[in-house]
């Protein structure tokens, strides 16, 4: 339970990583790290296949990161039509850790430039839903 409030439309309700949403409510975007081998995971992963016996711990994503790739979606899939146009993107947040998110609508499309500095920020969506987005760092 708990994960069904994540994002515009969530397709998952139950997950060991549901605390991610509680952290969002506290204003934090978290990844995880394997306590044994130290591998950092984003999206968060509560299991490490290389060290199946180990545990993972939550680690806050601080940043800043930089924009690697993006696209402004004009044709939204069913369930997302009303949001379009919106911009999806991948950002790099150090040590090869990539984050997929939307870019805040506060940034004009013309201002979006590859390589620009980003931070990843928790946001509230309508209907008490929680997500995160890229904002200017």
């Amino acid at each position, binding site marked *: 339970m708990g*994960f069904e409030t*994540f*994002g*515009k*439309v*969530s*397709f*998952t309700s139950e*997950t060991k*990583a549901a605390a991610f949403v509680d952290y969002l409510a506290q204003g934090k975007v978290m990844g995880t790290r394997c306590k044994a081998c130290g591998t950092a995971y*984003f*999206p968060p992963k509560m299991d490490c296949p290389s060290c199946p016996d180990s545990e993972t711990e939550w680690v806050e994503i601080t940043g800043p990161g930089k924009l*690697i*790739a*993006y*696209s*402004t*979606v*004009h*044709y*939204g*899939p*069913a*369930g*997302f*039509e009303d*949001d*379009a146009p*919106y911009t*999806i*993107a*991948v950002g790099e947040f150090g040590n*090869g850790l*990539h*984050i*997929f*998110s*939307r870019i805040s609508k506060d940034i004009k*499309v013309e201002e979006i430039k*590859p390589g620009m500095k980003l931070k990843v920020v928790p946001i509230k969506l309508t209907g008490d839903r929680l*997500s995160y987005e890229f904002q200017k760092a």
Partner: protein
Amino acid sequence: MDDVAIVGVGQSAFTRKSGVSIRELCFDAFKEAMTGLDLTNKDIDASITCSAPEYDKQRTPSGLISEYLELTPSPAFYIESVCSSSTTGLRVAYSLIKSGLHRVVAVIGFQKMSELSSRDSAERMGRGADIMWEAPFGISMPSGYAMFAQAHMAQFGTTVEQLARVRVKNASYGAKNPKATYRKEVTLEEVLTSAPVATPLKMFDACANADGASCIIVASADVAKKVSKIPIWIAGLGAATDTMSMSGRKSLTSLSCAKDAAAQAYKMAGVKPQDIDVAEVHDCFTISEILAYEDLGFAKPGEGARLVDEKQTYVDGKIPVNVDGGLLSKGHPVGATGGSQMRTIVRQLRGEATEAQVKNAEIGLVHNIGGVGQYGNVVILRR
């Protein structure tokens, strides 16, 4: 190495709305594949049906198709790797024959995309990405590839005009393909002014959802030599994956699953990119074809677009690509697409591609990708 061959190839017409059932679409493909072969349905000792189930009403379609084509009691298998399902089916058919378990295997791919609206299909495709971490943001297939296009343009200076030239080329061949959904030429202007779908990609940079089926008959060498005048040999096979998530990708300017699959297939076939006479690549979007040129080694990284600028991928160029119109003209009935690509290469190698025949084609290649580079299959065929 010449021990498994393709003896028959067929496809239905690909259309926006077929007006027939999936079993009848599959029959059309089967009928063409069996034409001229000294084989009947009773000789097919296994079948592999390929589709992406999210678009289907029929559950476990392998049983249904096996019954309709009267292939029972031979075993019937079902394979899915979204848009690359039917070349994954070919890989399984090859293994079944190599192992000696079977001698003649039918690989049947289908999809009836008109069962759903394009928006609902886009939602299913969004759920073909990571549903926990990426689908909730509204990712779609076009926007996944659009990020590759944007990154390629930023890193290498590829332009929207160059992307558009891929559609112009493929439309010029689609115009000649009686089985293609879109059978008319388009101008650069028309592509550039079409509606935005996911920047920088526009409607004419995208393949259309379509209904259709394909069928490939695969046989062991002894059977192939008996039943077919020109067996086409499976010389190389490669298959690889990359992460489901976009955030897991090491590169957003190339598809590593395609590069890995190509390296395996070239090695197995003992050939190099410059030995390929004709290729079918997975041009679900214009950018996808440019990525394919580079991932297959037809061009250096970043230089793919030049091939189409210089018309090197036209039928009389250095390496003709998608001279049947590609997915961009034919339309993309997900599970059927790989089989249609195979059909084109087999017809080219047999010298039967009357619409746009590459002269003396002896070695051909198929590049078929599932999802936004999640699954990659490369097949090398030889006359």
